[in-house]
């Protein structure tokens, strides 16, 4: 067990070493996308929305955009990047000639998207601090932890989706039919509670929605205890369930 954990950490370290090589181009979209959303939708649409839930519109969408960074970074990692390592560049094949096995590869991957989720939420949060509100160390710390949890959960979802993919072009289908809806119906841009009862029920299947609810409560320091007691267990549970199925399916791809 300890040996497995050590190997998973070494895999994560290698992912980081590769990532660091083109650090700037790697983090760019994850950080610039939320900025564009803040300026275009936040300020553009915000000019017509007097307030939402007692907040200026641009402030309304800020916490959701911070938390969504974990979805984007973990989806791209567990889809394209993972698939390339699996099917094209032989990274995993090479690892399987060492004591590393499928278990360590999958744990290493999930650990890595957890770290990326944390890092990206932290980065976008700093941007929001610079543009919108004053520095808040407690929020920064808690959103980073939430980012790790969201990165893990969305990464597990990404791996599960990847396990069904037959060629690299199919990721566009996943992006269009799974990842985009998760983002647009996550509560980032409008409150889910104002939607129809059916839409609200559907939103409850969206792990990003749990994370956004938590992020908003933390950002506005409102109903924190109530929100956490409902959505944190949901988020952890969905992470575990998605992780379980992702593990089983990816294991069979790595170890035929």
């Amino acid at each position, binding site marked *: 067990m300890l040996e497995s954990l050590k190997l998973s950490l*070494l895999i994560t370290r*290698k992912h980081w*070493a590769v990532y660091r090589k083109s650090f700037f181009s790697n983090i760019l979209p994850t950080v610039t996308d939320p900025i564009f959303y803040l300026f275009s939708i936040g300020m553009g649409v915000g000019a017509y929305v007097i307030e939402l839930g007692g907040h200026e519109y641009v402030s309304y969408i800020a916490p959701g955009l911070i938390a969504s960074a974990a979805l984007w970074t973990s989806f791209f990692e567990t889809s394209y990047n993972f698939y390339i390592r699996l099917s094209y560049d032989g*990274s995993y094949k*090479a690892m399987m000639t*060492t004591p590393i096995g499928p278990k360590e590869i999958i744990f290493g991957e999930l650990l890595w998207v957890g770290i990326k989720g944390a890092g990206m939420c932290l980065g976008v949060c700093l941007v929001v601090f610079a543009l919108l509100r004053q520095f808040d160390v407690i929020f920064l710390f808690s959103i980073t932890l939430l980012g790790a949890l969201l990165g893990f959960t969305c990464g597990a979802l990404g791996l599960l989706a990847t396990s069904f993919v037959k060629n690299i072009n199919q990721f566009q289908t996943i992006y269009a039919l799974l990842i985009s809806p998760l983002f647009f119906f996550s509560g980032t841009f409008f409150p889910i509670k104002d939607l129809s009862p059916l839409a609200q029920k559907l939103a409850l299947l969206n792990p990003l929605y749990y994370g956004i609810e938590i992020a908003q409560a933390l950002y506005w320091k409102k109903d924190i205890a109530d929100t956490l007691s409902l959505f944190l267990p949901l988020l952890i549970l969905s992470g575990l369930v998605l992780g379980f199925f992702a593990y089983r399916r990816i294991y069979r791809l790595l170890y035929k």
Partner: protein
Amino acid sequence: MRQILRAENVEKHFGELKAVAGVSFEVYAGECFGILGPNGAGKSTLITCLYGASARDAGKLSIFELDPQINGRHLRARMGIVPQDNCLDESMNVYENMMHFAAFVGVKAGERRGRVETLLKFMSIDHKKNATVKQLSGGMQRRLVFARALLSEPELIILDEPTTGLDPAVRHLIWQKITELKLRSGTTILTTHYMDEAERLCDRLIIMDKGKIAALGSPASLIHKHCPGYVASFDLSEGLKEKVRLKLEDSSEFKTLEDQTGIHIRSAQIEALVRLTKDLQTEARLIRPSNLEDVFLTITGKDLSADA
């Protein structure tokens, strides 16, 4: 001699296809054991079962008295594996590729640098230490993969087509290194479809065809058993074909075989072949001792280079 590996009726299926269809053999300490066969014979599939990177569907496997399916991690820590594809990380340079691998195979942090330097020197690529993988030629990449496989100071080395696609100079260098490792009493298992490679390196070998073992033995014993003597090859022509047919129809002294490259006539005595070429009033393209390729042709009745 100490037995290191034992395979009993190993099978591996891909759907309907039995890629490995019941294979049994043993490997002993210090020997170089070859697995030969055409593309698609099941060599690589068998190899991945040996180091526990894929699961067999039937049979028993024991290496160092451990089952790779259960103890893969511990077994791979004692093995050095050169996979068929190089699987190098193109975004990293030679040194970084080696250092990450050294960590994976459990080399202690303080010893990694030294071990990496030594092995790069051993494979004569230390001057390419800072080159990226993309900057390396095919031969250089293969040498790097060898150096990488040796990081674990392996007791058993597994080479899956170590020299496929390499030029003769690099092949010789790789052969020389394999021989050096053998002298250090390392045990080697190697797959190849080059008969000369197998003759040169392997103490014993199996010839696989359609997932099964078609023959087992040392190169010399296989040649001696299946096709002793010499082979004269002639360019293909209808006239010659007819002449050969008339002359050798009932001969027990000569064995005739025909393929796309020509007519090959084998005899136990080289003098008999020389006499025959005179009788046929044709020049032989080549007269040579019979080799493993002839063994394969005799056993399976097909050309080794043919894709299955």
